[in-house]
């Protein structure tokens, strides 16, 4: 069991590195991904020069998918980072200080959790008509309450421990206790949660672009590609299967890695 679990970073590392290469170097690998070729039109996978076929505009599905990696991944990473930064900042204050800030934040979280995230994201981004980065911002707002809650919970769990009480008795400043004593012990959990959030944000972002929101027309993106090719499924199965598999594999790899990290941190905490 343990040996098999330790394979996880390796197994998930391969697809994630490939995706990372796509994100960083797509403009050199597939410079002509969005080039249209109306004459060709839809072709099935295996057509000369088009491993996964082409869509109704004659764009190569494979090239489009490689080019779409960056819009699928960059936003979610920013979302997870931004939301965790808010979470760490406000969660630490709310957890350690309590008071009105704590109350306000918990009510805000209650309100947002009263509705499914997908629904709120759809309504808000749809009505304000923002582009990619506005969508990212909206999702940061939607993701942060759970992060604040999570960090707040771990901070409170640490605050009750004797070593924090000893620090108080030593007369250390609040800032020192928060950032030197509590935070280093919360960061491992925060990191693995952030990783899981990247996967969740990836799914949410591409869901919105599947519904026609967030990503402008013509910009390569997996969710957009899926919604464009829904009607092509009988003529070019590759146009559906490739982006769908890419989203599923990326999300699964990140989730597996995050889950594995979380287990390891928990085990280490137990051993302490």
């Amino acid at each position: 069991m343990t040996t098999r679990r330790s394979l996880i970073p390796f197994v998930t590392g391969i697809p994630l590195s490939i995706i990372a290469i796509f994100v960083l170097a797509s403009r050199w690998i597939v410079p002509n991904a969005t080039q249209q070729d109306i004459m060709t039109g839809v072709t099935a996978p295996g057509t000369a020069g088009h491993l996964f076929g082409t869509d109704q505009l004659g764009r190569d599905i494979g090239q489009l998918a490689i080019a779409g990696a960056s819009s699928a991944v960059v936003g979610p990473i920013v979302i997870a980072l931004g939301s965790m930064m808010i979470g760490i900042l406000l969660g630490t204050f709310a957890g350690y200080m309590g008071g009105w800030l704590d109350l306000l934040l918990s009510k805000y979280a209650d309100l947002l959790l009263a509705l499914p995230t997908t629904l709120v994201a759809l309504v808000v981004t749809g009505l304000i008509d923002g582009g990619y980065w506005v969508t990212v911002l909206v999702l940061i707002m939607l993701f942060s309450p759970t992060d604040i809650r999570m960090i707040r919970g771990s901070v409170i769990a640490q605050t009750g421990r004797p070593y924090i009480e000893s620090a108080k008795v030593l007369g250390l400043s609040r800032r020192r206790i928060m950032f030197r004593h509590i935070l280093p012990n919360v960061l491992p959990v925060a990191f693995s949660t952030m990783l899981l959030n990247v996967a969740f944000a990836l799914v949410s972002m591409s869901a919105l672009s599947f519904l026609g929101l967030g990503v402008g027309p013509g910009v390569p993106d997996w969710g957009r590609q899926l919604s464009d090719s829904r009607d092509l499924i009988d003529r070019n199965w590759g146009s559906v299967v490739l982006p769908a598999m890419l989203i599923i594999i990326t999300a699964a790899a990140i989730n597996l890695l995050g889950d594995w990290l979380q287990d390891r941190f928990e085990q280490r905490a137990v051993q302490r």
Partner: protein
Amino acid sequence: MDSAHSHRRLTQLLSRGSLTRFIIVRLAATGLLLVVLSFVVFALLHLTPGDPARNLVGVRNVTPELLQSIRDKYHLNDPFLTQYLHWLGNVVQGDFGESIRNNTTVTTLLSDRVLLTLQLAAFSFTLTVLFAVPLGIAAAWRSGSVLDRSVSAASIVGVGAPTYAVGLLLLYVFGLWLDIFPVYGSGDGGFDRWWHLVLPAITLASGLAAMVFKLTRTAVVAELNQDYVAFAQSRGLSHRQIRSLVLRNAMIPVATSLGLVFAFLFGGTILVEVTFALQGIGSLLAGSVTFKDLPVVQAITLLTATVIALTALAVDILYYVVDPRVRKRGMK
């Protein structure tokens, strides 16, 4: 525990008055939440960029008369709070105004579509519970076995797999390639309706089942590690007795989390209905958002919130009934 016993216990509880008081307190909290949400939902109209009146005109020709009639109808010249109270008064009576896109009242539009969504939700919820809960129990019981490891790994993939991607893959494999299930549409009612809903329901259930599996497995594993299980084994209780002991304890967190799952269900229906071109509430919402059909968006958002809030209330009451510790101390 036989049903007569539990029924007796329930009536006993009601007569003591503590449960009724508990329900009243929770109802008040739920009501408050809904009032706040309704306020936010109403404010959407003003948060949307542009003149609210023009937004409400939609694709019709903008004439000063039309704008004026809309302003009168929605009391747009009144102070914000008055507008809200007018709107709320109508909403309570079931009047959400008129759809901008379709020239009907929002209420008729919704009542035409709500059945399909409810059927889809019920179907996939049943599938989820039927598969995920027993699998979760079995995996926990044999934790570390091949069954546990494979289902656990699948659930990590399943939790993260986006519904629309899974849906389209299923559509391709079972709809087109193997040609077992219909590809689009919602069927002619009766059995045909359910037959059309098989793929959408499986799609929706896949993510949910992964989540419920994980929750169930965690809950049962936690109970199995408790001292009382070892103590029961050492006293020679039968396997069946120990199982009922563990499940009775694990049932409490599992039942609670099923409420949470219900909330996710409504987020998921949007994507599944769009993917399979089903004419339900979810696809209506997606369409209405892109068309800025605000009355419809407001109505659906508020209805969803109500359903979720009531589910949460039901879960709390259930919690109260099944957990003697909560019953004794009262809920916070």
